[in-house]
């Protein structure tokens, strides 16, 4: 997902918990929202910082593959739409960094950790966007997969995170629909355009399935995060849901999901499908995907080259404040 393989702190049974921890767990179980200044286990705080931080990083790094096509959109309208979509993602990053900051970490610290490689972002953004059809596939599949995970997270136990998710979900549906609209246009276009749409689906299908992370059926980390309600579903549940919803959408487009084993399983009431190549996933996570260096390089460059501008705004604000203070003194 936008947050993949987030390490959680150790899981304790109710008996092993301190009275404070037990009271906390009972509040979470009741469905209470936990707010920033309230007592929380250190593990909860740390896990949330990792998860929300990774999610925030994914939003802003996720701007890069789409930013790649803004200047080459086929029409002015498509350009304006893509620009608006990419701008939304900056906002999503901001909501999430703000939520993380309520846990006692600063945005600059998180930025530093992204740029040094100490924190990760979603594996999906390390794949290249080679044609305009990729803008369709990204909106449809990548934002689609993100929605799968973000909708349940609106009910997460941490108040600021939940509120950020609610805002984000309001905007995501536009993202997915504009992507699908591009796919419809291409799939109904010339044979070459349809071929481009099929090629985009072929390249983005398995990386999209990887977004949910490897199976976490037996993972202790996941169990703890689920007990804390900062993870609402298992990775496999969400992946299945994504496949079930996406396959009919591909059929409508007249495109073929690149999975020969894909079949409707009447007994399960779900599609059976092939797992992505997890060794590829682990390579991408390690930094060896097709675009890891390019993405991180672009982020660092934007940060470094923007320094003079941030410094200028700070200097201006300080001067203006000093001027105001001086004129107040003079007026007295």
């Amino acid at each position: 997902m936008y947050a993949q393989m987030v390490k959680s702190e150790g899981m304790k049974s109710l008996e092993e918990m301190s009275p404070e921890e037990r009271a906390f767990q009972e509040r979470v179980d009741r469905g209470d929202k936990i707010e920033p200044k309230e007592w929380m286990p250190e593990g909860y705080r740390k896990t949330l910082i990792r998860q929300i931080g990774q999610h925030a990083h994914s939003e802003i790094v996720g701007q890069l593959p789409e930013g790649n096509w803004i200047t080459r959109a086929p029409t002015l309208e498509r350009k304006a739409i893509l620009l608006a979509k990419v701008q939304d993602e900056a906002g999503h990053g901001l909501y999430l960094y703000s939520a993380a900051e309520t846990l006692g970490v600063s945005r600059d610290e998180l930025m530093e950790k992204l740029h040094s490689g100490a924190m990760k972002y979603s594996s999906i953004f390390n794949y290249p966007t080679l044609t305009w059809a990729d803008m369709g596939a990204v909106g449809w599949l990548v934002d689609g997969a993100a929605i799968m995970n973000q909708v349940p997270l609106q009910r997460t136990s941490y108040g600021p995170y939940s509120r950020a998710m609610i805002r984000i979900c309001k905007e995501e549906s536009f993202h997915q629909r504009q992507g699908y609209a591009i796919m419809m246009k291409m799939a109904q276009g010339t044979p070459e355009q349809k071929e481009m749409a099929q090629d985009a689906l072929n390249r983005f299908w398995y990386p999209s399935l990887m977004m949910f992370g490897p199976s976490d059926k037996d993972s202790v980390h996941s169990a703890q995060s689920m007990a804390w309600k900062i993870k609402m579903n298992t990775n496999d549940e969400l992946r299945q849901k994504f496949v079930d919803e996406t396959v009919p959408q591909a059929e409508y487009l007249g495109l073929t999901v690149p999975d020969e084993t894909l079949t409707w399983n009447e007994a399960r009431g779900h599609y059976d499908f092939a797992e992505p190549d997890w060794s590829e996933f682990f390579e991408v996570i390690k930094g060896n995907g097709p675009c890891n260096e390019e993405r991180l390089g672009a982020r660092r460059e934007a940060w470094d080259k923007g320094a003079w501008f941030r410094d200028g705004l700070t200097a201006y604000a300080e001067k203006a404040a000093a001027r105001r203070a001086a004129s107040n003194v003079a007026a007295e």
Partner: protein
Amino acid sequence: MTKKEWPLWEIFIRGQHGLNHRHVGSLHAPDAEMAIRNARDVYTRRKEGVSIWVVPSAAITASAPSEKGPLFDPAESKVYRHPTFFDIPDEVGHM
């Protein structure tokens, strides 16, 4: 590299329909003027508002979570503050 972090601002937006300004989130900005500009870009792209307030987060004093009980529990026993507490016969008409 900038070592100095911009202060945090809390953003309040008044929607179209004359309701109170409502807290919508926060953001970093070097000063109040930039906070308003950024708030306009982040929080009103879909016509969510007609007025923006920005307040330095540091200027907000919040009630302590530990005081939840003493502050808010007393209201629990005062159900007569709600109109539905009183049974008014139907014959009386709408009230």
